């Protein structure tokens, strides 16, 4: 018996008049663990923003099943690291769904904060000012906050950036624990080996879904090749999308295949990038 957590109905998301996600249809099962992969500009982050509701759809809709509470770890956090706050203050924001604006933090809440920090390997970091954390430590702090949010839909956008191999292992373990707890998880990942090893399902995006389903099937070479041919740039004078055929925007892609492969290769692997 499978229940759906999210339903995408003809979802188009984008910026200006240009779509970054184009007419997406499909569902995410409750309790599924899905990797979202694709080249730069293929719409992965945009899809995440659309699901959280930070970005309003240009057309179509995202339907959340009743009772779904989302926790979202963005790729480009708007976190102000110069703000005078300690690790515990930052993680405690994750108590918002539980306590809201005015609810007092109880002893139990504070214990949960400590436990969340322990779970990401940052036990004892409570009092550290956030501007003294390294990039990887900050990322783990944000994971602790997600942990505390106790959401049943967890959206992680490139959570392994600037994180060392050991920590990636720890974070994957955490994700698997959430998976075991029947939470629905979607993770944007660039490292395909990581995806093959750890994620049962994959959505391969290139503005439209190229393939979507069991990871081994999705990441077949022919699918990856098709995803790579996708043309990243907007066509300033691309024809308007009419209700029937919406494939024409992609017809240009073949001529630009080479340039695109090149840009894609930079981002393979979990190498350090500005986070």
């Amino acid at each position, binding site marked *: 018996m499978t229940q759906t957590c999210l339903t995408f109905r003809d979802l188009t998301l984008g910026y200006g008049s240009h779509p970054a996600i184009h007419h997406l249809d499909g569902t995410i099962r409750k309790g599924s663990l899905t990797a979202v992969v694709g080249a730069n500009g293929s719409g992965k982050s945009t899809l995440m923003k659309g699901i*959280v*509701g*930070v970005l309003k759809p240009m057309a179509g809709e995202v339907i959340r099943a009743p009772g779904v509470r*989302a*926790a*979202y770890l*963005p790729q480009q*956090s*708007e*976190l*102000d690291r110069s*703000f*005078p*706050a*300690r690790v515990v*203050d*930052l993680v405690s*924001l994750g108590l*918002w*769904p539980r306590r*809201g*604006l*005015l609810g007092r933090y109880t002893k139990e809440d504070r214990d949960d904060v400590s436990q969340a920090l322990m779970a990401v390997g940052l036990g004892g970091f409570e009092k550290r*000012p956030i501007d003294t954390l390294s990039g990887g430590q900050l990322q783990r702090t944000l994971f602790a*906050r997600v942990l505390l*949010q106790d959401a049943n839909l967890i959206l992680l956008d490139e959570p392994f950036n600037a994180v060392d191999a050991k920590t990636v292992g720890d974070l994957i373990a955490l994700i698997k624990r959430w998976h075991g707890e029947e939470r629905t998880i979607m993770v944007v990942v660039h490292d395909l080996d990581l995806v093959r090893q750890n994620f049962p399902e994959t959505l391969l995006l290139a503005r439209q879904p190229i393939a979507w389903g069991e990871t081994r099937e999705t990441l077949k070479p022919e699918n990856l090749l098709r995803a790579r041919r996708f043309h990243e740039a907007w066509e300033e004078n691309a024809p308007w999308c009419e209700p029937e055929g919406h494939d024409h925007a992609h017809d240009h892609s073949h001529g630009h295949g080479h340039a695109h492969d090149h840009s894609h290769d930079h981002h393979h692997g979990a190498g350090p990038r500005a986070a």
Partner: protein
Amino acid sequence: MDMLYGLFIAPFADFGFMQRALVGSLMLSLGACPVGVFLMLRRMSLSGDAMAHAILPGAAAGFLLYGLEILPMTIGGLIAGIVVALGAGAVSRFTIQREDASMAAFYLISLAIGVLMVSIRGSSVDLMHVLFGTVLALNNEALTLIGGIVAVTLVSLAIFWRALVAECLDPLFLRSVSRLGSPVHFIFLGLVVLNLVGGFQALGTLLSVGLMMLPAAAARFWTVRVEPMCVLAVLIGFASCVAGLLLSYHASLPSGPAIILSAGVVYFASILFGTRGILRSRIIHHRHRTA
């Protein structure tokens, strides 16, 4: 003892206008300094200045219609300030333009209107009065008004504290868990306007920003947490008011600038001697630990 009494206590004990000036300015500090801390942390320090200019046409309209009366000028200032705050805030939230640019545009337009209005009917003396105020002429009406503004400010800060901190620290997170992000920003801008308007009878539209920003900027050098920073800013504000009023009394100086300059002295002292100031972080050589 007598000399100390004469220096520090007698001016306040003997003169009603000094007592009212003290009460008024202390109350102002209580509300304006925490607001200043958040302005600073949101990197909107200069927005306070812009808002102070923006208040001018409203105050001038009140002044032209009713003369030098506190209530019409205050209400006028409040309306002008809120129009500019909402306008600039809305432009930055709903278009690609950042708040610094929209704020600059709105306040400059507002300032020009204000100067135009004052010059139509008034003289430059009137303009000086609106710009620089006088803390020594606070009547009971003005004190009541300031008291009300402080109460509203402190209650609002207490209620929206968590949202305000979240909005400063991680606005995208707040948007993902709550719809309070935009409202809290506008409520905060409202508090800024309210406190500037409260201050302008005492200090004038321009200097009231000083009591808001200088203690906050000074407090930044002493602590790494928001709560103590607000408390410290208020204390620095208190000290500046007392010192400024005494200075003004003994040396026959205008009171507004004396208060702000006292805060300025604390600011420079904090830059030098604060726990996060220059001397500690640059000159004194620290020993470091092994881990």
